[in-house]
């Protein structure tokens, strides 16, 4: 009985999208009304889990999710009275701008590593202030795209293949558990005057937030940008 309850509880937890927000306590320079936001094309990579659980890249899912997330974020931002411009990293990988986009990827993944996983840096205790920055060099991004803030979204995830779903059922019959796919995303809002990450959120998608569909993306973006100062 106790086991069943635990199992049900786990199912209940997995069944909805969960998020975890971090906000800069250094410079609470949240966007004022009318602040211009640069939306960096979401960096998405989705894959299908083979029977054995090897992630195999799925370009159609990746492209669909990238487009869905971008349009959902765009409409979410439109409601907040912020002029939005777009940049595609594929077309801006050269020079200082390209370096800043890659720098943000490195910093964003470091935030995930040191604020959301079990690891922490001696210089950034988990209980301490949320203090991550791209440095003042980020101004180059603001000047090039005429923006005050930049919003980055990064999503990775996998979904079970039909074969794996069958294997999950079959293995369960033999008493063996096989993990299904999972999807995570983070959003990061950067002040382009200071380079500071002023707001950061990480979301684990539930089944209702399948970013491959417009409705699922809408749910994921709603969870991801919930409480964002935009």
């Amino acid at each position, binding site marked *: 009985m106790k086991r069943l309850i635990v199992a049900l509880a786990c199912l209940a937890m997995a069944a909805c999208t969960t998020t975890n927000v971090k906000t800069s306590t250094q410079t609470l320079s949240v966007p004022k009304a009318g602040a211009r936001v640069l939306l960096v094309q979401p960096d998405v990579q989705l894959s299908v889990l*083979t029977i*054995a659980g*090897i992630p*195999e890249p799925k*370009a159609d899912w990746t*492209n669909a999710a990238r487009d869905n997330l971008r349009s959902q974020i765009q409409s979410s931002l439109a409601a907040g009275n912020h002029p939005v411009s777009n940049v595609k990293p594929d077309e801006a*990988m050269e020079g200082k701008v*390209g370096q800043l986009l890659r720098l943000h990827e490195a910093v964003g993944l470091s935030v995930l590593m040191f604020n959301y996983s079990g690891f922490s840096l001696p210089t950034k205790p988990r209980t301490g202030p949320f203090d991550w920055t791209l440095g003042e060099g980020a101004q180059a991004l603001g000047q090039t795209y005429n923006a005050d803030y930049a919003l980055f979204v990064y999503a990775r995830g996998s979904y079970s293949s039909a074969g794996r779903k069958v294997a999950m059922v*079959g293995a369960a019959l033999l008493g*063996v558990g096989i993990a299904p796919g999972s999807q995570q995303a983070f959003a990061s809002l950067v002040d382009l005057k200071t380079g500071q990450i002023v707001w950061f959120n990480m979301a684990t998608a539930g089944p209702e937030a399948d970013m491959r569909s417009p409705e699922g993306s809408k749910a994921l973006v709603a969870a991801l940008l919930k409480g964002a100062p935009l």
Partner: protein
Amino acid sequence: MRLRNVLLAASAWAVAVTPVFAEPRPPHSRPVLSSDEGGIWDLLDRAELDTRNSAELDKDPVLNAYVQGVVCKVAGDYCADLRVYLLDRPYLNAITAPNGYVEVWSGLMLRAETESELAFVLGHEITHFTENHGIEQWRKARAQANVAMLASIVSGPLGLLAALGAAASLSAYSREDERQADREGLERAVAAGYDAGGGAAMWTWVIDEAKASDFKKVREGPARASIFNTHPIDQERIATLTALAKGRPAGAGADKAVYRAVIRPHLASWLRDDLRRRDYGQSLYLIQRLSQLGTDMGVLNYFKGEAYRLRRGAGDDALAQAAYEAAVTQIDVPPEAFRELGNLYVRAGDKARARTAFESYLSRAPEAQDRWLVETSLKTLEGT
């Protein structure tokens, strides 16, 4: 329960031994986006974008046009499908990814002695592309992993047997891919008019260079075309290529002097990179081999001296000095040879020759960043 195990093992075995072929690709084809191949292409396209901004990318337009030209000759109808990126990496390697992304490393350009050798390696890589070996390997590995997982669920010897069968068929398969790439790569190069001897020559000195390594593991292990290549180069592959080349009329691209002229502008920087591998036995073997042509002796002797200077073994000072002394008599000597010679003379107490060497360095490299350092050495020499 027993019956279920047998059935599961049997189905696992069936997956393991069913050949999972990827068809040879027609030119100018793109996979369907939703396919496994489409997903891999998409990932590789993004990796290619990163390479375009890589600091390792050699953008010399002359060299790029040259290598792209050789690729096109060997690739024939597939020319437009292949995009060549020259990378400054001192290991012998070239990679062709399933999406047509081609990496050619400077370590390969430096080691090839003729265009026909380069053409053979590129032909080998292009065959991996045209035969879609990368996708084939992925599908095979995927099937093997599936079987291994099913086998891990199904306990007992039958499950283990199925997993072993899958592992054996995968490695046999990739060895066959390498042989096919050797064979058809050579045929491609020959069809493009290149001399057939390039293949066997190339792999022969790859083995010899491995034997010359400072490291026991490299000397005694099987030779590999690169640190990442899991498929060893052995005598069997050389014998096959030699047999294939036998009796064919001499082809083009076998002139060492012509090829050397192409890579000459990069020779010094590639040798400098090669020394960073810190395998001086291999570097010295390579320099010795490149010296047989008799040209570029200033540069080659200078880097021979550098190899001895950096190795710092017993007697290496004398060997370095001899090499630098041979370098400074040549018209193409790098100015640094004089500086290093000066340092060695200082150590030997030969002040007069040290002074001459340092002065030669400064007169040949008046803008040298370390000019102040050498001037200080000269002052110290005067003061004593």
